[in-house]
């Protein structure tokens, strides 16, 4: 992709490479310090694979004390550190830096305690999101946030990104579903926030850490809340002849006092793509497909489905199917869950965007995206978490064609700007990372960003933990607007970098 500006490389660090390796190997088992080119290659990117960077070294500590010792050493020696969970992040939050130690939490993969009495699981950060549910499902419990990457993504990464999923409207995102964390600060201080109680007194530091993208501390333990599975879950699959009618139906469902467990929308391009791919049996004549999932007691769910059906019929739906059993309900989701690979099958590459908009603006947003698709001559398919307003346009392109790459990025950024114009935000659940860093100025002015940077420097005064992520490299948003980088040359090389 286009040139990415990263924090200035600290030559002093590069020059003392051998000294760093030697000391890291004293702090932890030398086998867990990787520095050879072949060993560190797998770590050069996360799921935003277009950006690659070789780290200085990779360290894989095995316990909290080791994490603390590594950070303390790096703090004293002014060495940057990039934390990494499972590496499934889509915004480049775990992108390594040439002069930084990559701190992999891969060995923190154990569930420490299952506490049914207090309805929580204490886990190391490398445990997968799905792993939490798998540990408790035999007693009918589950962990609510379910990002689509739940098979691979780690709970520590979920905390860093405040991950959501398709059930966020009713069950919230990560921040609403964890009770406590153990965290190590850049200077090596180990602290516990929260525990097994609901809420915590004083400043909500856990709320601050959740979604801070690895800039404020390294999560070494998570206490996650578990919920009892609902008695009954059923879904409806509804096709609409126009985007407006489908969008209106989704809005009306909410304004009628129904809070679906999940509500998903797919546009025509995606209906076709996913149906070709997964043979989900979607109505291919529809311009828009709505999946509504409801949970509760048997009669409550039936009653709500009746109401949903009435609303959809009133909005001229062209097809309506209700799930009669669990198999059918899962088949409704099969296509939606295959949305990303289906797009992958249609074009050499796809670029997944992640804006949030008010539900009522969906039709407007989709029409705008359609226009932009024509302008850039790039096909796009859209899926939308209609329950919580999270829009994922998938732009299809050929990564081998540099011009297409440039156009794709510009297209994506125009979509996110449109989201902000419509009253939404530039990222709903994927995080800012390096990908949307310069777009922060679309939402925040200089004061807003400065306040956030002040928090960052109060907890990491040397700016060593995951620098170059989330915040624009050039600080003065209000004056500069979006930063354009031409051939890797910055406009103001002397301005401080973050």
């Amino acid at each position, binding site marked *: 992709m286009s040139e990415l500006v990263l924090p200035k490389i600290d030559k002093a660090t590069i020059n003392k490479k051998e000294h760093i390796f030697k000391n890291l190997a004293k702090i932890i088992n030398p086998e867990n310090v990787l520095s050879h080119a072949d060993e560190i290659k797998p770590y050069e990117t996360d799921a935003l694979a277009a950006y690659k960077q070789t780290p200085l070294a990779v360290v894989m500590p095995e316990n909290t004390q080791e994490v603390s010792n590594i950070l303390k050493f790096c703090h004293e020696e002014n060495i940057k550190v990039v934390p990494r969970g499972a590496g499934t992040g889509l915004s480049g939050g775990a992108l390594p830096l040439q002069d930084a130690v990559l701190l992999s939490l891969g060995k923190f993969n154990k569930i420490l305690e299952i506490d*049914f009495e*207090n*309805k929580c699981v204490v886990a190391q950060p490398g445990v997968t999101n799905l792993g939490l549910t798998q540990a408790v499902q035999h007693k009918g419990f589950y962990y609510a946030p379910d990002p689509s990457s739940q098979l691979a993504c780690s709970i520590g990464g979920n905390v860093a990104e405040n991950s*959501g999923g398709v059930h966020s409207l009713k069950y*919230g995102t990560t*921040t*609403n579903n964890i009770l406590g964390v153990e965290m190590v*600060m850049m200077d090596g201080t180990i*602290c*516990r*926030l929260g*525990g097994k*109680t*609901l*809420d915590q*007194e*004083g*400043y*909500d*530091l856990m*709320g*601050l850490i*959740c979604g801070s993208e690895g800039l404020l501390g390294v999560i070494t333990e998570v206490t996650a809340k578990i919920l*009892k*599975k*609902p*008695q009954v879950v059923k879904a409806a699959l509804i096709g609409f002849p126009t985007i407006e009618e489908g969008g209106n139906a989704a*809005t*009306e469902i*909410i304004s009628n*006092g129904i*809070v679906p467990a999940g509500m998903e929308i797919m546009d025509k391009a995606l209906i076709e793509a996913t149906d070709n791919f997964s043979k989900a049996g979607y109505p291919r004549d529809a311009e828009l497909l709505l999946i509504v999932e409801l949970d*509760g*007691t048997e*009669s*409550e769910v039936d*009653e709500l489905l009746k109401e949903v059906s009435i609303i959809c019929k009133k909005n001229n739906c062209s097809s309506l199917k209700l799930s009669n059993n669990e198999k059918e309900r899962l088949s409704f989701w099969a296509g939606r869950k295959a949305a990303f690979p289906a797009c992958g099958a249609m074009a050499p590459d796809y670029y997944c965007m992640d804006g*949030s*908009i*008010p*539900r*009522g603006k969906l039709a407007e947003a989709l029409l705008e995206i359609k226009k932009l698709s024509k302008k850039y001559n790039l096909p796009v398919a859209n899926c939308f978490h209609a329950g*919580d307003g*999270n829009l994922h346009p998938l732009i299809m392109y050929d990564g081998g064609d540099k011009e297409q790459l440039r156009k794709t990025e510009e297209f994506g950024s125009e979509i996110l700007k449109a989201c902000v114009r419509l*009253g939404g*935000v530039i*990222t709903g659940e*994927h995080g800012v990372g390096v990908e949307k860093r310069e777009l*922060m100025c679309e*939402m*925040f002015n200089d*004061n*807003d960003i*400065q*306040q*956030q940077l*002040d928090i960052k*420097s*109060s907890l990491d005064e040397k700016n060593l933990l995951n620098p170059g992520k*989330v915040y624009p490299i050039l600080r003065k948003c209000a004056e500069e607007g979006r930063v354009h980088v031409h051939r890797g040359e910055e406009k103001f090389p002397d301005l401080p970098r973050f």
Partner: protein
Amino acid sequence: MSIEVRKNSQIFQDSNKTYYPEDEIEVSSVVKELYKKNLPTELIGTGSKSFIGNKIQSANKLSLSKLVGIIEYLPEELYIKVKANTSLEIIEKELEKNNQELAFEPIDFGFIESGKSNKGTIGGYLSCNFAGSRRFKVGSARDHILGFRGVNGKGEIIKSGGTVVKNVTGYDLSKLVTGSFGTLVALTEVVLKVLPKKKLSNTIIIYIEDKNLVNELFEKISSSSSEVSGAVYVPDEPQDESYNHNKEMVFKFNDLKSKGSFLALRIEGDKTSIDERIKALTEELELNKLNISLLDVHQSVPFWKKINNLELFAKTKNNLLRAVIPPSKGGELMQNLGNKFKYYIDWCGSLYWIEVKSKKNMQIVEIKKLIKELGGYLTIIKTSPDYDYEETIFTVDHTRLLISEKIKKSFDPKRVFNPGRMYRGI
């Protein structure tokens, strides 16, 4: 009260040295001046919860009382944007028109202070982050704030969040300002998530003779998929006649025998789903083996209001403690509290409201020690007039205090806002 205009700021300040800015820009100008002159200042709304926290020694006050009004309410988008000093009552009335509510069930602290309702403002409420009985099911106040605008301690106008529930753009400062007791930001605008109100509510009352059963029942309730949205235990206090009299007066309902201990659990929804849930709970909790009664919607709604108004402790002159523990530690805590204290348990076994008689400060020290050992935290909500502050109002460990100091500094480096309200040095 005479009102004069301060020439240098052009913003009203009355003879009590209280500023009354009209809007956010004026708040910013006042705070800039306070910052420049290093003047510690108390932030005030309507003062409904001013008794919570440490007393502030500051000459100046900044009243946000003019920042009132609903800015935008979109029921179909499930949010309401209001000026920070809008009264909770007005917000709740507006939401009621569309059958919506603030699901975290705000507590009315007016009753413990003066015996009557005084809900105060939304900004004040968020500053405390104390959720009502539905907390264990739907989350706290902090889980329902989507965004805010405000002025930091340097006088800069800042914002965070937005109007959508899924938003990971930058640090989540909304959570940080919620529960910060006005020590970080003078809130000017807040956006709240709202939810549809459940159609009906019923309450099952279980009369408890054996106290050992209480935590067993709480455990079963929280393990049930019947979506119980309130579970409270009100013990009998045989030693104290005035308490029992008060209890009988507060819980005067046709279908509730207020004598003796009882556990109440609430089920909400439409009629058929309530019936279905009661049926399921009857089996799960083996209700047919217990002595129970049922409060219909006409009794259930006011019952939970009384719980959330803390009416059992109305006008108390004693110390009132709020302790939150992991529910599994309930048995131990109950045993320790024994018959020595008036208390009741909310949040399905997690939250204890405990009254400690005045001049018994040492007991507070002991209770706090125990709560900490049990993995919980304790806040002294109201102090008796003779409280000697032997024990601090809030619970905080050393590391968290250090981090909190740093956070405070990043928002309010000169400690202009509410200095000492939460902790010494913050």
